[in-house]
């Protein structure tokens, strides 16, 4: 059987700020190397999407100007179908602005409130100073603790709602709000995170988890993602973590 995945890349011409393209590329590559057919569908302003069209949705982050253009379309045009998909267990990865947009609202530091989708119960407060730094997190997957390397750059502090689960534990960096030690959120098969870098290429455990969730949902719980080496990715992650921890890579001058 030839498996096929459709990746819906939401607003790629507006939300593409911090290497978001790398996340889509990683999903494509690790699926294609396993012989799975991949189609990437652009879902931007003027493009239609219905529940059932896509197996994995990706929403990135953008500059304020672009994000405002997107926000109107998301609230008024695509919001309801995105909410439906999330409830139905479609796999979503949302980064930075996309993550904030899934929540209830974004409150700017002057108190002005921007209504968001309300697909998930978190909310975000804007602060003047930004968290801009390399990051290291841990996630639990299949009973194992895995280290994840990334980068964060956000002025928003996100607070999870009652009972809302975080995605990762912060080892280095700030995460959701710099206070509670957690990063991102997970609800059903939807993930929100501030981590870019890009997130997926260096962290194939997350890439494979998203692929596996999407393929199991499509082809049944018995579906097993074929084995695929993570050697190159592991090397890149290890080097990044060594650099972040100051173990190597100081300039000579």
């Amino acid at each position, binding site marked *: 059987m030839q498996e096929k995945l459709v990746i819906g890349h939401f607003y790629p011409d507006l939300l593409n700020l911090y*290497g978001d393209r*790398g*996340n889509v590329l990683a999903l494509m*590559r690790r699926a294609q190397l396993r012989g799975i057919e991949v189609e990437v569908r652009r879902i931007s302003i*003027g493009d239609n999407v219905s529940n059932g069209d896509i197996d994995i949705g990706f929403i990135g982050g953008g500059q304020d100007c672009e994000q405002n253009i997107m926000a109107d379309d998301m609230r008024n045009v695509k919001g309801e179908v995105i909410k439906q998909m999330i409830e139905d267990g479609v796999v979503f990865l949302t980064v930075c602005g996309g993550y904030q947009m899934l929540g209830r609202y974004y409150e700017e530091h002057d108190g002005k409130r921007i209504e968001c989708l309300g697909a998930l119960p978190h909310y975000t407060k804007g602060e003047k100073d930004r968290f801009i730094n390399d990051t290291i997190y841990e996630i639990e997957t299949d009973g194992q603790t895995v280290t994840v390397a990334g980068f964060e*750059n956000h002025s928003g502090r996100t607070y999870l709602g009652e009972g809302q689960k975080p995605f990762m534990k912060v080892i280095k960096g700030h995460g959701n709000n710099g206070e509670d030690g957690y990063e991102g959120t997970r609800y059903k098969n939807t993930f929100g995170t501030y981590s870019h870098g*890009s997130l997926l290429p260096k962290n194939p455990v997350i890439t494979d988890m998203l692929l596996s969730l999407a393929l199991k949902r499509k082809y049944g719980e018995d579906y097993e993602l074929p084995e695929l080496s993570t050697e*190159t990715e592991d090397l890149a992650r290890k080097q990044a973590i060594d650099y972040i921890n100051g173990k190597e890579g100081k*300039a000579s*001058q």
Partner: protein
Amino acid sequence: MGLKAPAKAAAKITQGILRLMGRGATTLPGRVAISLCPDIIRKCAQGKKIITITGTNGKTTTTHMITSMLRSLGYEVITNVSGANLPSGIATTFLCEKPARGVTPDKIVYVLETDEAAFARIAKDLQPKICLVTNLFRDQLDRYGELTHTRDLIAKGIDETSARMVLNADDSLVASMGKTREGRATYFGLSLNTMLENNRLHPDNTILAASSDATFCPDCGVRYNYNATSFGHLGDFECPSCGFRTPDKRYELSYDASGNPSDEGFEFDMTDTGTGTTCSMTLKIAGSHNLYNTCAAVAAVTEFLKSENEGDEDKLFEQACRSQGSVEAAFGRMEKIAVGDKYICILLVKNPVGLDRSLSFVAQSSDADSLMLVLNSNAADGRDVSWIWDVDFESKAKDLPGNIYVSGQRYGDMMLRVAYSGRNIDGYGSLEYATTLLKCALSDCPAGKCIYILPNYTAMLDLRGRLVKELKLKDFWKD
């Protein structure tokens, strides 16, 4: 405030000490002078003929081109050294660079590369005659933020001068600065026919579009319609809502799209649409992006000559075009350095579109034997290396040279980036191994062929030191 003289003296002393210490004295003297006399730039700039060059990409190359062109036209040109484009570097240039003895003041021109954010602060003090804006591409995002904000900063600076604006018509963000300033703006860019022909001959073969900015009209929030594109967000655009479109170009570059602008000696035409004059020219610094830089330089020099002379406009344009023949490659910008019978060529890449253009250039270069990518993440580079994923390596991967090496503080990230484009890596390692990798590349390199090195900013500085120390190359980096 009678502090100009002591400030100048302090700057000269600082420069002397730094030179004795063997350091390039390109910014510190100016910093000392500014601290002693905060309006030193205004005082120095008073009454001088100044051309500023700003924008995210191509500043240094275009500044270098304009400098050579004006020199060959008999002007005494004073210019800042590459990269010293903040107020401190500009103050240093005023204080420490001297015109030759006996030059009459009306023959002296200051050609100043100016950082985008710094421009807003010092345009009023400089009062330039000509402000050239090359383009606005996403840069180090942890430093500047919004591109529209950068545009507004530049526009604010321009509004505090009476300068003539020379703007890239194909860049919607740059061109939009002329919207409310029509009488002062002149535009340059590629001819629509050239772009159309280029798009027809080289159709987009990307599997995943490169991330691009400014494809939406910031005023209307509506996607531009593009009749044709050149690279990044540059092209012939029109907003279907407000009707804002690529302005008519006074200076237009056209070429045979079946040719290869990565070849040395590539031929093209420049047309002054105002007078209908066309000049045949030869590209002096290879690379398709340097067509834009050349076009910008010709536009700026012609506008400068017009501000100086009453003469026939077509003659002044021809003079500017002819003067472009004097341009030579500058180090770090396409200059090939001989190592025995082989070459290395360093192309500084600072941001996604810069890397995209350099990869394209290397992919099209017939003498490329190896590619070496060197990625650092110090503050001056931007600490976030995510941007390497915004670049479309995928469509170029099969045309890149046979051997690819990777180094720098973030060699792991770059190695994975290359691997994900489907190419194998022949060697990688941290900066300590950069010259070892380079030696390895050189030993495999056939005579006459070239190793192209693409470092970002601090990686280039680091590499420069290592090439001198460990490869015993002479210090070719002349400030």
